């Protein structure tokens, strides 16, 4: 297998669309499985995506989640047009939340989202501008071809 593994796709996420929250994460999970990514990594990335998606749905007008997979790592970039985060350090604290009742009714909004995203990624960088939006860059490393030297061909 001389071909380096390289895959990238972006997914639009609609703000306020609680009904569809999780759709994109489900798609990304299936793509990673098809790419032959080990189950443990798939799960970590899926959790990261799902929390990102919940955040976009909960707070932003709209957003985009981009999945990039290479031989070395899986990268997730979650970029939204939303209110922005005035104090990122505070927002990262477990238990800190500005979520609405609707978000809490779904079983989220308890101030665990960003903490979970940090917990399951190896690198996480947040940039945010109040009134403009937030971008979260996350990388899950240690990966695919090292563990799976004979990755199957990608069929999508």
């Amino acid at each position: 297998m001389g071909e380096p593994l390289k895959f990238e796709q972006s997914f639009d996420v609609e703000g306020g669309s609680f009904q569809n929250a999780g759709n994109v994460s489900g798609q990304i999970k299936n793509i990673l499985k098809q790419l032959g990514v080990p189950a443990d990594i798939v799960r970590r990335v899926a959790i990261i995506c799902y929390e990102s998606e919940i955040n976009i749905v909960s707070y932003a007008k709209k957003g985009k989640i981009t999945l990039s997979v290479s031989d070395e790592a899986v990268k997730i970039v979650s970029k939204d047009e939303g209110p922005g985060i005035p104090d990122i350090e505070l927002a990262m604290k477990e238990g800190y939340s500005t979520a609405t009742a609707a978000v809490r009714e779904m079983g989220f909004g308890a101030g665990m989202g960003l903490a979970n995203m940090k917990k399951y990624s190896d690198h996480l960088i947040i940039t945010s501008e109040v009134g403009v939006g937030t971008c979260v860059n996350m990388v899950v490393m240690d990966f695919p071809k090292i563990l799976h030297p004979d990755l199957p061909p990608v069929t999508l």
Partner: protein
Amino acid sequence: MTLKDVQDILEAEVLVGSDQLQKPVKTAFSADLMSDVLAFAKPDSLLLTGLTNPQVVRTADILDITAIIMVRGKKPSEETIKLAEELKIPILSTRYILFETSGRLHAKGITGCIEKVGGEI
């Protein structure tokens, strides 16, 4: 233990996945907060919860949960059922409260998918 045994212990109604009752189960996680489920639950466990919205099914799918047990007699909405059927995730409904549901399963050998938090992923 299989899902069928779980159904018997909890006198539960199978709402989705009656064809999957032979699946084995050893561990479980109980919570109404999905972010906690995402933080701590392990694959191939049962998810015991009082929430009934589609996000419970999504969470279960993301984590490869074996089955969802809805406690306190809760019944999911039509769209929750639809999503569970689509994603092939069994849903059982029991009238026992969360504490009793957890206790009865634990007494029969189902253990927590983690014992306590701290330090591990």
